[in-house]
Structures are given as structure tokens and as C-alpha cells.
């Protein structure tokens, strides 16, 4: 299989890219920092024992004009697009977002509108190639609005809904969508936050996601226990949600 990854230089994307090259898949990296991309490409070259580093092209979720050229370049270097994986996203604490309305707007734009924009470009190319897999990292934060993640959660809720819609509309035409809903995972995004019980680690999340991609599972919680946690949280009455702080 081959895969284009947006956001593979760090966190869960990094773990996922490593797992893919170690099992022999071909990857292409998209990301915003050229130095970081180059370092990650070299890392993957050694880990996958590849003759050359994987190809890498600039692409920034904050700049929609970079989406089409990046995907075109990736498609050209891979020959044919089979899988597109988006792990990139913006994150900030609710306190920081509340302090700065512009920051809140831009996070909502990047995590929802721009991510959808990127996925639209990817969807067209995957369908034109006869089908493929679009795997996008949403979040358990999108399953129920909660006070610590008002803006981030809203953006991820929109993203999850979009991905479900894509699945309904294009499944028959060969588009597999995989919506990943990570719970708390120990990455640089969550560094500095105190890990709750059931915190996951990127390598295990990556293994679970690769399995979901392989068998085309539309929704995957990682670590899996979050599926049941969120089932409970979704059913908590509003009066409770107003009082609790999670």
C-alpha cells in the first residue's frame, strides 16, 4: 500500500508513518516545516531500511492554497494515491482560546473548514483513481460538547460528521473513510497536561489505526476503551455536564 500523510512529523502521525514503512508500505510526507519534514524523512529511511528517504512536500493546514499542489506532487511521486492520512490539527487549551477570539476562530477554521477542504481535494483524487482510503484524525472531543474543549470539540464534532457523511455518500464508489477518535494520547500536543486514566501511547494508537485502515473500519476509538467512556459521556444529562469539569 502507499500512503500520503499530512502531519507525520510528530505525535501519532510520526508513529503511524514509522509503522507503515517498517512493514513495507510506501509513504509520502506532507507538512509545513521543511527542516522537520527532512528530518522525519531521514528517520523513516533508516527505520524502513529504504534506499532513499520518502518524498516530502510542503503543505500547511492553515494555508488552503497549498493543498492541491501538495497532493498533486504526492500523487506524482507515488504513482497512484491509495491512502491519504490526516493527523495534523491545531490545538490550544480552552483558556488560551477564550483569551483570544482570533485564535479561537483560526483553530476552528484549521481543524474544521481547512481540514474539510484538504479532504475534498484528497477525496476527488482518490475517487478519480478508482477508490482508496481517507483516514482522518478527529477526536473523542467531537463526541460530546464539554467545557474544557468547547471550540476544539466543536470543530472535531463537525469533522466527525463530515467524515460520516463522506462514508455514506461515497462508500459504494470505493471510498473508505476511517475516522479516528483518539482519547488522551501522550504526545507533544498533550505534553504539560496531566494524563487522565486510560491515556494512550502513540505506538499503540498507530497499530490500531493501521488495522482499521487495512480492514476499512469507518470509526475507530484509540485506546479502544474510549468508545465505552464516550458512550457514557454522551448519555450524561446536561445538568451533570454543566457541573463536571471534564
Amino acid at each position, binding site marked *: 500500500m502507499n500512503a500520503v500523510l499530512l502531519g507525520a512529523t510528530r505525535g501519532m502521525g510520526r508513529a503511524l508513518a514509522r509503522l507503515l514503512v517498517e512493514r513495507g508500505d510506501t509513504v509520502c510526507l506532507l507538512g509545513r516545516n521543511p527542516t*522537520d519534514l527532512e*528530518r522525519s524523512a*531521514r528517520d523513516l529511511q533508516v527505520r524502513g*531500511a529504504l534506499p532513499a528517504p520518502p518524498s516530502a512536500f510542503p503543505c500547511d493546514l492553515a494555508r488552503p492554497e497549498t493543498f492541491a499542489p501538495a497532493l498533486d506532487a504526492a500523487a506524482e511521486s507515488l504513482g497512484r494515491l491509495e491512502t491519504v492520512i490526516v493527523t495534523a490539527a491545531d490545538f490550544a487549551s480552552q483558556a488560551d482560546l477564550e483569551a483570544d477570539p482570533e485564535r479561537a476562530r483560526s483553530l476552528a477554521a484549521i481543524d474544521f473548514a481547512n481540514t474539510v477542504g484538504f479532504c475534498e481535494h484528497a477525496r476527488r483524487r482518490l475517487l478519480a483513481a478508482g477508490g482508496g482510503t481517507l483516514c482522518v484524525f478527529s477526536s473523542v472531543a467531537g463526541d460530546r460538547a464539554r467545557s474544557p474543549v468547547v471550540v476544539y470539540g466543536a470543530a472535531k464534532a463537525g469533522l466527525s460528521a463530515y467524515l460520516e457523511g463522506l462514508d455514506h455518500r461515497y462508500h459504494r464508489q470505493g471510498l473508505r473513510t476511517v475516522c479516528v477518535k483518539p482519547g488522551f494520547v501522550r*504526545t*507533544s500536543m498533550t*505534553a504539560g497536561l*496531566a494524563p487522565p486514566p486510560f491515556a494512550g501511547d502513540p505506538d499503540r494508537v498507530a497499530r490500531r489505526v493501521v488495522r482499521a485502515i487495512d480492514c476499512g473500519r469507518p470509526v475507530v476509538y484509540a485506546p479502544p476503551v474510549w468508545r465505552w467512556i464516550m458512550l457514557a459521556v454522551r448519555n450524561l444529562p446536561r445538568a451533570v455536564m454543566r457541573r463536571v469539569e471534564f
Partner: protein
Amino acid sequence: MPSDEATIAGWGRVSAPGRELRSDDLVRLSDGATLSRGLGRSYGDSSLPPPSVRAVAGTVLGDRVLGFDPATGRLRAEAGLSLDALTRMLLPRGWFVPVTPGTAFVTLGGMVAADVHGKNHHVDGCFGAHVKSLRLRVADGRIVDCAPDREGELFRATIGGMGLTGHILEVAFRMTRVPSPWILGESVRAMGIDALLAELEQSSAAWPFTVAWVDGLGRGAGLGRGIVHRGRWADPSEALASAPAPPRSVRVPFDLPAGTLNRATVGLFNAALYHRHRGYVRRRVQSPHRFFHPLDRLADWYRLYGRRGLTQHQSVIPQERGPAAVRGLLELLARRRACVPLCVIKNCGDEGAGTLSFPRRGTSVAIDLPIDDRTQGLVDALNERVMELGGRIYLAKDAFTRAEHFRAMEPRLARWTAVRRRWDPELRLRSAQSVRMLGDPA
């Protein structure tokens, strides 16, 4: 101090208020940071922040390999890469680190900072002997590349410098080609300390890897009885056909009650271990994980020591002092009725390039001690003996040594301090240990 304040601990459970900030971008993470910390396997307070600082920079997410040349074995990587990950990646391709400590759960940065040594110190020296270059963020914020022939003083002060000369960002060193992924190991029992040291000495003439496990509670003629382990990489003809299974571990699920490891239980365990090994030479092909990192099979084994944790006293006694000096240390433990769950003896080769690096030609004696009210007195007594003998201690294991003892053991300290001061006149880079032992500002 409010009880819900976050604390950060060394492997032996010595802790300090503070938390570990992690990022995969070590350049950004180290900016303005007081101390970097890898996997936190140093036993004492080496990786803990000084009292006035409540955070350390955790490097484990900075774990990218930046290059590996299969023709020469030269590897460059970010400092947070763990030895465990590196071994999983490259042992199947026929490469191993030139020097490994007793656990694979260390980072490259930590291996440089402590200038770790292993069972092959008598032939291959410390890890630092194989390091080609380092990229550091020094105290004034600059990023500096150093190597033996480039900012050589800084390079040598950083090897074994406990992270106090700069944040280690990248490490380049040479991996070793191995003939197979298996170890051919032998073990032989020795009935007392003199026999054990003689066996260790003889084994070291013929074997690249040697170490001795000692029953720290042996008495009389059995004082210092133990088992000498020796090994080398197996030839392809000796190796098993399969690859060694990747290491797996079981966790210690909870803290055992303090005092579970006492002279009675440890004595029984040690006697069983000693007697189960019969009197002949045992030879077997072993996985390198088991051979080099036997304790890794028990994750979180510090919990066996209970809430208060453990410390280790590791010293090196100069060669010229002879076996009597080592015997003297063991007698001191016996006299004080110390509980020693683990005692490991290893002969060291020549001193390496690291200005403050631990090993020197002689015998290293590592003594694990459960922390209790007598620990400070015992460590003081051991250190006084080590000072008399002209030996020194290993900072990566230490939590109890007094500053005046350390200064008396380390005539090299002035030279190292001069280099450190040149790069960090305000002593911005500090640790709880450097405050305790070097008199840094808190």
C-alpha cells in the same frame, strides 16, 4: 508543600516537586530550560530539577534517527532515542551499540550525560569513547556542535557531565557490527571474594563481556561469593537459527510493603541463586536482551523496594589497591548488617576522555540499598572508605553522597568546573544533584 503538587522522581524514587515538559522539538524545548531528562533511569537526583525550578525538559519524544550508514555503522540521532528502540531497529540488521548499560530504557542523551559503561568496559571503554560528535544547546542559548577536535573541551566535559554543560540535542556515534544477534555466554561460580576477583580477571583476558553477581550477604568464607558471567557475540555457526525474541516484560503491579526485601528474604534468594548454579562452567547461547539487560524483564522493579525506594552506591577502587580493598568494602557492609539485595562487581579498563566520567582502571562495586533511616550513615561510611582508597563514585546512581566527600574524591572537578563555567558562567544549567553536590545555587 501541598500534597497534590506534581513530583518527579529518579529510578530509586528520590523525588522533587516539578514536572516533565515534553516536546518532539528538542531545540525549542531546551530553550531556557534548566535541565534535560531522558528516561529517568538515573537512580538518584541527577535528572531532577533544582529546588527553585519546577520543570525539566523531557527529551523522549525527540527520537528521530537522522542518518545511518550501513557501510561504517555511523549513526546520528536525536537525543531522546532510546536504546530499546535502537536495538529493535538495528539488531536484526546485524548492529548493536558499542556499549550498553544494564538497562535498554535509556536515551542516547542520557548515555552520553552519564557516560555509561557496560560489561565490556575493560576492552571498549565507555559509551563516550564511541561518540563522534554532539549537538548541544549551551546555557547562553546557542546551538553548538562539538567533537573531539572541535570545541574539544566542551565535548569532553559533556561526556559524563550529567547534562550540566549543555542540553544534548543530537548524538553521533558508531554502532558495532555483530556476527549474529545472539550471545554465547558462560557463567562460573566463585566461592569467595578472592576467587571471584581472580575469575573475573582471568575471564576478562579472553572475553569481551564480563561481570560478576555477588551475594552481598555472604559471610565468613562465603564473603563475596558469587557468579561470574562472561560472554561474546556468537558466531553464525553457534547462533540459533531464529532471531532472539524481542524483549518482553512483566510489570510489578504495586509497591511491595517496605521491608519485604530484608536480610532474611534477600539472604534466602541469594543463597538459592548461588546454589542453583552448580560448580561447573555453564555455557549457553543467550539473547542479548537477557544477557545485557536482565532486570528489564521486570518493569518497574524499583517497586520491590517499597515506597521509600532504593539507592545504589557504585564506586570504583583503583587497581593498585588490590582485592583486599574490595574485600574491605564487603566487610564493611557485613559489619553494619546492611541489606544488599543486589551487588555487582566489574573490572574496569582505562579512564576515558570524559573529564568527569566515572570509570578508571580498577574494580567497580555497585551495591543496591533499600532506603531507610540508616542509609545516609552507610553511604557516608562507604564513601569514607572509597576516599581512603583513592576511588570515586558514579553520579548517575547517587542520592546520598555529601558534597565534601565528592570533592575529596574528585581532583578532576576543578578542571571540569572551569570548562562548565566558561560555557555557563551564571550556572543556568543545574540539577537537584548539582545543587546538592557541587554547591550550585538552588
